[in-house]
C-alpha cells in the first residue's frame, strides 16, 4: 500500500512539472488542490489522464475527479477499490 502512495507522488511530481517538490515533501493527507499544493483545474484533467494511462481507470467527468483527487490517500483508495 505504501508503495502505491510513493509511486503516485513520483508520478504526480513528474507529470505536473512540480519542479521544486520531492515525494517526501507531500504528506499522504495533504490537500492537493486550492490552498494545499496549489494544483488547478488543468492539473485535475492531467490526473484523469494519468489514472487512465498508468492504472487503466477511466474517469469521465471533472466533477468525479474533484472528489477522487483530494489527497494522495483518496487517490490510492480509489485505485485499490477499483482494481
Amino acid at each position: 500500500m505504501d508503495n502505491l502512495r510513493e509511486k503516485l507522488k513520483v508520478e504526480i511530481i513528474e507529470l505536473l512539472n512540480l519542479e521544486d517538490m520531492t515525494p517526501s515533501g507531500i504528506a499522504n493527507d495533504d490537500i492537493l488542490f486550492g490552498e494545499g499544493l496549489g494544483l488547478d483545474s488543468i492539473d485535475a484533467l492531467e490526473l484523469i489522464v494519468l489514472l487512465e494511462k498508468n492504472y487503466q481507470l477511466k474517469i469521465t467527468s471533472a466533477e468525479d475527479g474533484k472528489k477522487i483527487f483530494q489527497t494522495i490517500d483518496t487517490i490510492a483508495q480509489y485505485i485499490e477499490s477499483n482494481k
Partner: protein
Amino acid sequence: MKSYITSYCSITPESCSLNGKVKYQNLNNRTFNDFSKSIYKQEKIAYPKFSKMDGLSKLAFIASEVLLSSKDTSRWNEQQTAIVLGNKSSSIVSDQKHYDSYKDRASYFPSPAVFVYTLPNIMLGEISIKNKITGETSCFIQDQFDSTFLYQYIKDLFDSEGYHRCITGWVDYTPFDYEAHLFLVSKSDIEEVKTIFDHNFKRLII
C-alpha cells in the same frame, strides 16, 4: 504626442540583456529549458506556475519579468496597460507535442496541459495573469518583426484609447531557435526614459 521606452529586454540562445547590456550570458550553450531556469532562479521569481508553461510562454514570461524587474507594477492602472506582440511561428512546438500525444491509436492520451498552449496568445495571458493586466492584449502573426506596424498600433492605443503603458515586441519559439525582444512603452516620461518611442524602435536590439 511623444511616448517613451522605459525598459527593453532581449533573450536569445546567446544571452539575456536588459537595456542594452548583457545581464545573463548563456554559458556552455545550455538548452532553453536550462537557460530559462537559471534566469528564473537568479531573478528570484518564485512563481510555481512557471514550470507548467510551454517554451513560448516561458520565453515571453521570463522576458517580461526581466523587463519589469526594476518597475513597480503595483502602481499601474491595469486597465490602461496593453500587451501587443508580434510572432511568426505561432505555437508550433506545443502543436507538435499535442499531435504526438494522440496520433497513436494504441497509446492515445491527449494531454490537456499541452493543448492549453496550442495558441500563440496564451503567452499574453500568462503575462497578464502574473501582473494582473486587464487592458487590451493582441498577438499579430507576421513574417518578421515589424516595429513600424507595432509603433502605429500602440500610438493609436495611447492617443485614442486612453492607454498609458504597453508591453510590445516580438516573441518567437521554434524547435530550432528562439528570440524575445520586449519593450516597455510609456505615455509619460516620469519613469526613467531610455529613449523616445518611434517607428524604428527595433534598432535597440543588439
